[in-house]
């Protein structure tokens, strides 16, 4: 089952690390985690997909939902460490443009 690592860095950026598969079961939990972070004032968020082996359309929906919530609060959501398998799902849905994957978590907010 999917576990979520959640931490807030010294620079105020929240890092969420879903482990395993992001499907209709775990996407609901990811949504809650992302909204919870923004509500507590953390609107700059990196979703570290380095431990995520699979993403389906509900996982993509949760990421887009998080992105919109973060932007509404003046922040942003970035995804990092995307595997080739997950990247091809981004590409098939044309979401690689809006969820532009960053190679590392540390540098995800550098631009």
């Amino acid at each position, binding site marked *: 089952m999917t576990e979520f690592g959640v931490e807030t860095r010294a620079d105020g950026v929240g890092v969420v690390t879903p482990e395993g598969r992001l499907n209709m079961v775990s996407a609901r939990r990811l949504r809650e985690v992302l909204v919870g972070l923004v509500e507590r004032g953390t609107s700059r968020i990196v979703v570290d997909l380095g431990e995520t082996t699979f993403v*389906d*359309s*509900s996982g993509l929906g949760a990421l887009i939902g998080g992105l*919109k919530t973060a932007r509404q609060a003046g922040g942003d959501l970035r995804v990092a460490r995307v595997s080739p398998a997950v990247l091809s799902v981004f590409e098939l849905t044309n979401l690689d443009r809006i969820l532009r994957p960053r190679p590392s978590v540390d540098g995800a907010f550098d631009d």
Partner: protein
Amino acid sequence: MTDPVPDYTGRDGRLELSAPATPEILELVHAMMAHLWTTHEVTAQQRVRFETSVIEILGNIVEHALVGSAPGDGRRFDIVLDVGRDDVVARLGDNGIPVEMDLSKATMPDELAEDGRGLALAKAALDSLSYRRIDGRNLWDLVVLRGGS
């Protein structure tokens, strides 16, 4: 969609599962696909296209099985999976409500949409996706060809 219904009973290596249509079953279907990959050499690209599509179609079945039915009221589905010499195929069947949509019109929604991507993703990932209503059952046939990648 007027092609004859493919017959998979001659595929000796096929896996067939019949199970309750619950969200938890997705993990078991992932395990079935993982089993297919241990016994056949399929490229990473073909595997991800197939797995994603199967989970999208099954996810829809599970979602619509839950709508308007009490948990444990016996809504079930079945799935056949097989890797052939030239293709990787799945058939999903369920006795749920007929699907009221035209598959040919399923297109990718706006980039900021939070849902509505499932069928368009499966169509984009597969070499062939077809839906039929036969004898009160929904039948979905999914194909990834092994030729290219």
